[in-house]
């Protein structure tokens, strides 16, 4: 009965290096594509493309789309679609902008810049996002209206309630606490960033080791120690390279002087400071790790994948697929609220067109990242990488002087080509039925 001895006899014939490392081929393909894009633009721009400053900017610009793409993975995996994320972002942003600039200061009599305003504003934005998502989920899950229709309608509805909320005017945002979420105004500095980088590396190694030990304790074959070592070295190397690189981006001297003056001090001669990790990127990392854990290690995540694989089987297994649909869309809405916070802080204002066409970028990021529109398949890290690839392409093209219309043409073509290549790959590997 307890026939675990059998496991050891399972055939393990000649395996290639990729198999031995247990690397996801699709992930590898994306990394190669990403590296190729970076290489081409680095040569083209004479090295400016990979300068710490540009890497910092690309990272910061990619955050809102990447955050929403994490939620979109769950939506698409569950065989749904959400076309309203750009409008939901705008709606959350409008509510947050109005609440901090007008409603809370005037109605509640709160003083400008009070931390209470910011906290209430953020909670309100998250609540509005989650609420909008839950409404979508209820219409899709309980009323059985196709999500394409519900969210296409939502695209118009939320975009224009946003318009009505702000009367179509831009709202300028100046609260320094808010701007911290945007990027350049909220960085951790080199020392803290390095400490975080080391901590993340230790956590990653510990995670890999504990997974290995858990597998061994049940008598499964694990990859050879050297392969595990190579994996760890690659992960740690990537983390430390990223952190070190951003820690080499200096804060402009004029800005440092202003900061000292604001505190009534004089900047010492020769003082310098580095940007390090932006808070918005930390937020993205927390979201991505949290969503990955949800996908792989929680019942909620498993049910989402099961529902995408076979909705009937999920239902017959006792999973409440209707309530699950509400949760998926509510989570998507919440992430739109979070993305709205980062987006408006980076732009330092709420504009009527904030998040316009963002739904297409978000869906493209998820799909480039390997999420299958047929449902059941997708990864969070893929979607984040997809967002980074698109942002790198766009940023690189802007640097070498490609006009905006052509930038968008290229992004559109890349989406189609990414899916095309994937289909060819799957056919060759005999993965399609």
């Amino acid at each position, binding site marked *: *009965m*307890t*026939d*675990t001895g*059998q*496991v050891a006899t*399972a055939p393990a014939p000649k395996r290639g290096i990729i198999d031995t490392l247990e690397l996801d081929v699709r992930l590898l393909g994306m990394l190669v594509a990403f590296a190729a894009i970076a290489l081409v633009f680095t040569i083209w721009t004479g090295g400016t493309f990979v300068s710490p400053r540009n890497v910092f900017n690309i990272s910061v610009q990619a955050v809102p789309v990447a955050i929403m793409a994490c939620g979109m993975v769950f939506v698409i995996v569950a065989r749904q679609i959400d076309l309203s994320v750009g409008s939901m972002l705008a709606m959350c942003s409008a509510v947050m902008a109005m609440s901090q600039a007008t409603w809370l200061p005037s109605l509640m009599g709160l003083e400008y810049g009070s931390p209470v305003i910011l906290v209430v504003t953020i909670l309100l934005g998250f609540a509005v996002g989650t609420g909008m998502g839950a409404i979508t989920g209820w219409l899709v899950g309980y009323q059985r209206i196709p999500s394409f229709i519900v969210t296409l309608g939502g695209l118009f509805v939320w975009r224009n309630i946003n318009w009505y909320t702000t009367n179509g005017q831009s709202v300028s945002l100046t609260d320094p606490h808010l701007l911290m979420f945007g990027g350049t105004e909220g960085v951790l500095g080199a020392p803290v960033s390095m400490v975080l980088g080391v901590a993340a590396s230790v956590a990653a190694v510990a995670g890999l080791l504990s997974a290995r030990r*858990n*597998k061994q*304790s*049940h*008598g*499964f074959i694990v990859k050879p120690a050297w392969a595990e070592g190579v994996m760890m070295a690659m992960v740690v190397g990537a983390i430390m390279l990223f952190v070190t690189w951003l820690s080499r981006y200096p804060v402009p001297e004029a800005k440092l002087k202003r900061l000292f003056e604001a505190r009534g001090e004089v900047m010492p001669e020769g003082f310098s400071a580095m940007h390090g990790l932006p808070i918005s990127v930390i937020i993205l990392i927390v979201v991505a790790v949290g969503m990955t*854990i949800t996908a*792989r*290690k*929680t*019942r909620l995540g*498993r*049910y989402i*994948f*099961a529902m*995408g*694989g*076979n909705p*009937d*089987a*999920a*239902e*017959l*297994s*006792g*999973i409440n697929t209707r309530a699950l649909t509400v949760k998926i869309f509510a989570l998507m809405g919440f992430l739109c609220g979070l993305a709205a916070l980062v987006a408006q802080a980076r732009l330092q204002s709420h504009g009527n067109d904030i998040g316009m066409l963002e739904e297409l970028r978000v869906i493209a990021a998820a799909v480039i990242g390997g999420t299958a529109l047929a449902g*059941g*398949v997708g990864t969070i890290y893929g979607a984040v990488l997809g967002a980074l690839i698109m942002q790198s392409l766009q940023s690189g093209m802007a640097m070498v002087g490609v006009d905006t219309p052509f930038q968008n043409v290229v992004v559109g073509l890349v989406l189609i080509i990414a899916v095309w290549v994937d289909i060819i790959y799957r056919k060759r590997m005999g993965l399609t*039925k």
Partner: protein
Amino acid sequence: MSNTPHTPLVEMRDISISFGGIKAVDHVTVDLCPGEVVGLLGHNGAGKSTLIKCLSGAYKADSGQILINGEKVDINSPRDARALNIETIYQTLALADNLDAASNLFLGRELVNAFGFVDESKMEAETRKIMARLNPNFRKFNVPVSALSGGQRQSVAIARAVYFNARILIMDEPTAALGPHETQMVAELIQELKAQGLGIFLIEHDIHNVMKLCDRACVMKNGQLVGTVKVDAVTDDDLLGMIIMGKKPAKAA
């Protein structure tokens, strides 16, 4: 109907369910005892699957009662049925093709660790144990079940039902997609489970399988129960007559 001395494990009394004016199941009463295999026969659309879905929780009967061990129960969802140790192997197998065997086996009932996180390694280890018993040749633990053969998929579906200590097992044409060797395996498994005291409802088209595996057979036609007979007391032709003509053989009880 049954002369066995036990309280029946399952009694479905006077069950009716209709869809849009069509009576799919029309006042049907069946029962099942521990250690007994009851075959459900009839044409496609006779109402066998619909009747049994009222027991597995996929449908809710419009009227009628379900008794488990003589006690009236309410089954409103597959979850309720599972809580009563009723396990179902659907004809479609109800597997999520994109997930591996362990994920399917534990779908809806994942093993979690102290922190509430799904314990994949433990689930895989448990899956290996039960598969070693049911289908010792099974090796494909780390691939999506879409990559498995019909027989392998069937063994995953059966493992799912058996692992959770079912008392009542519903099998909807378990051998329909299988080769002779695998069919024999399922037949042996049914005998083994029967010996362990499970009650099994077997929906089956193949008369020979019914004669071989079942103790009693309930025949349905157009949503109504034609009759329930002891398999030993009738011939193949009697059963065919019931299925095709809806005629109960005179000599059978």
